[in-house]
């Protein structure tokens, strides 16, 4: 009887150890996996709080009235953290402007680029 109880205790301990090991493994996999998560699926990110800035780069603070009647500039506001010039190389921004030229097309001289800005 005593042996049976001892054996049962031993089995319970084994199960506990196994569960503990599995738990640690799951946590480890989750932590490691989280680091490599697909950024597309990682959910939304926000930029936190930041100052709006006008075209000179000066802070706009409506609470203190500082430059409070001026529009904010994305170049200075967003560009404070992000590389505005790199971002605006995208075709949504350029729309052929990076290629525009009066001599772009010899056959169709009214076509000045391959984008919406200059394309017939």
């Amino acid at each position, binding site marked *: 009887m005593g042996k049976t109880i001892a054996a049962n205790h031993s089995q319970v301990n084994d199960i506990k150890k196994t569960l503990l090991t599995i738990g640690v493994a799951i946590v480890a996999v989750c932590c490691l996996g989280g680091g490599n998560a697909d950024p*597309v699926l990682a959910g939304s*990110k926000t930029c936190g*709080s930041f100052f709006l800035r006008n075209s000179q780069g000066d*802070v706009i603070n409506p609470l203190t009235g500082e430059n409070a009647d001026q529009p904010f500039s*994305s170049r200075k506001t967003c560009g404070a953290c992000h590389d505005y010039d790199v971002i*605006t190389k995208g075709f*949504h*921004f350029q729309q052929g402007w990076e290629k525009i030229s009066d001599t772009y097309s010899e056959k169709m001289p009214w076509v000045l680029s*391959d984008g*919406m800005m200059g394309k017939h």
Partner: protein
Amino acid sequence: MAKKNNVFAEQIDLTSFTWITAGASPDVGKPGCGGCHPGGGGLEYDRDGFRYDERLRKNPELAASLDGDYFQSKWDKSGVVEADCLICHLPGYAFKERVKNLDMLNFRWAIVAGSGVGLVNGSVKAGEKPKVVYNKRFFNDDGKIVFSLEAEPNSENCLFCHGPADMLKRGFSWNDHGNHDIHNARNIKCSYCHPGNKEHQLAKGNENLSTVRNDLDGTMRTCKQCHDSGYMGAPKPEHRKVRPNHLEKLGCEVCHIPQLGRSSALGLDVSTGKVRLYSRSGAKKVGGELIWFPEMSMGADRKLYPVNAFRPNLFTSKEVDGVYVPLFAREVEQAFKTVSTQFKQEALSEPLVSTTGEITVMLKALTATLKDNPRFQRVLPCYHRDGVVYHFDTAGKLTMEKDTSWAAEPNNFNVSHNVAPTRMALGSNGCSDCHAERAAIFSSWLNGKHEEGKQRLLARFFVDEDSRVYYLDQLHKYNAAKTYLIPMLFVAIFTLILFRESQAKVMPMPMLGPVLPSRMLLVVALLLLVRNVGFLFLACTGLFFFFNKINLIQIFFASPETAVTLHWNGGIVFVASILACIVIRRLFFPKINTAICHLGVSGGKILIAMMVLTGTGMIFRNQLTPELLYVCSLVHTVTAFVLMAVYAAKIYYGISRKLYSLQGSEE
């Protein structure tokens, strides 16, 4: 758009400045060019790389120059349009406020109105200097603001621009129960399929028209890449009901976008000098509810893809060197105003200038108004519509001729969204979804396109792409007969051969020479066994293909591709065994007729040669044109049935003779 350097004012169409507001109707929320252009690039810097507002402040005389960037501009007052990151990244962006402010020339202020963080009072167009009143509720005590931005833009933000633009081009809509999309129903955002890099170059599919950066075409995952790998849980298609060769000839969109629920623009009319889009017949307006079936167009990969065959009209002037120079909208508008009372102004499903009388009136008006325009060496107004160009001849009479100019290039906008659920895809209800008398997939291409008659089109078979489509249409309409006609051919040949054999004189078995190379006979017997087993294998797999028994193919071969590969490998083994047999027979048993090697039938050699030739063509199918591939396939199929019939008749006759002789010996 105007060139940078101009000699006279008539040369200048839209400047960089006027481009921003061109085409806008802010009262109905319709953006101009600059509304959808998010800013930056040509809305911020001129063609010399200087910021417009700063340069014009330093050099105010530029506004009076013929510089295509500054002619009559007010950059110094309006400011420039910097890239508005919030159009895409701020959920709930007030796009209409942006459009309104751009139209008021409040270029610098548009971002404030669009973001909703403040009010913009005043209009540069009205000669005022706008002022901003920020909503303090959005700011923390330290004066910082918190925007709830999305790193991956919401689809709704993309739709500010791509909603209306792609609706007219291809009947596209999103979040629309009347025109659903299975990916949309699974909450897939635009950015999942069109991700961007640091430069914000977004992955693109393939598009025929109105594109930029064609070098980025095909940078997004294809349907196959997602669905074969199960990307984001995409189900893997099995296409059990579809013949494998269809997957080689049709883009996925052909079957999976069988119809759309909102009318695209069927055409664009510039008769009045303003852009007027007209809807497909049956719809109240562009974007109105209408079930329509896309037309089909052949892509660069020679697969068919669904498109909206857009039909714009255009006015040009033919120069002395034969080049058709497009007229500016204002030039057409000026001419139209002089004759506008002669035209009905009601909305139609076709251009306002349509009849020969109307074309004559409009071309005369253009001749008069363009008379002293210095940008033309000569004035010869032309009207382009539906592949025809109209103009006056030297006698002043209206003539029409086939349009071979750049203006006649097809305007087929790809239809690649609004994907139907699988159960609605073409083929889900069987072959008759397409192979039927009035199936849209063929008839939609042809409707209204081939007025010159079918006979002429047939005569141009192999030459003209459209006639090929016509031919295929005819063929597919009667395709259902194929499964009956070819087996009937089998029965006919079988009967004829049986009759012929029964009438033929029985030849005595050839006597072998005194020195019998028994080992070689064994080899021949083995080769004949290989030949017969090979023939059986080829016949079975061929019949599976012919009757489209995909289930059997998957049971025996796992996939159609494996079955095809094994089929042509079996063909090689079959032919090799025959050749080896012939060689051995000729070397060691010269008295025996080698016909026994190629199935023992007269003409067997020719039939097998035809099979080899057409089979080789199909192995190298990618090198053949669709017509040649089709001919190869047809000849291969018919020859295979003839060969099977001949062989079957021979076997039947041989067995019956054997039974007869056994019966005789018993008696």
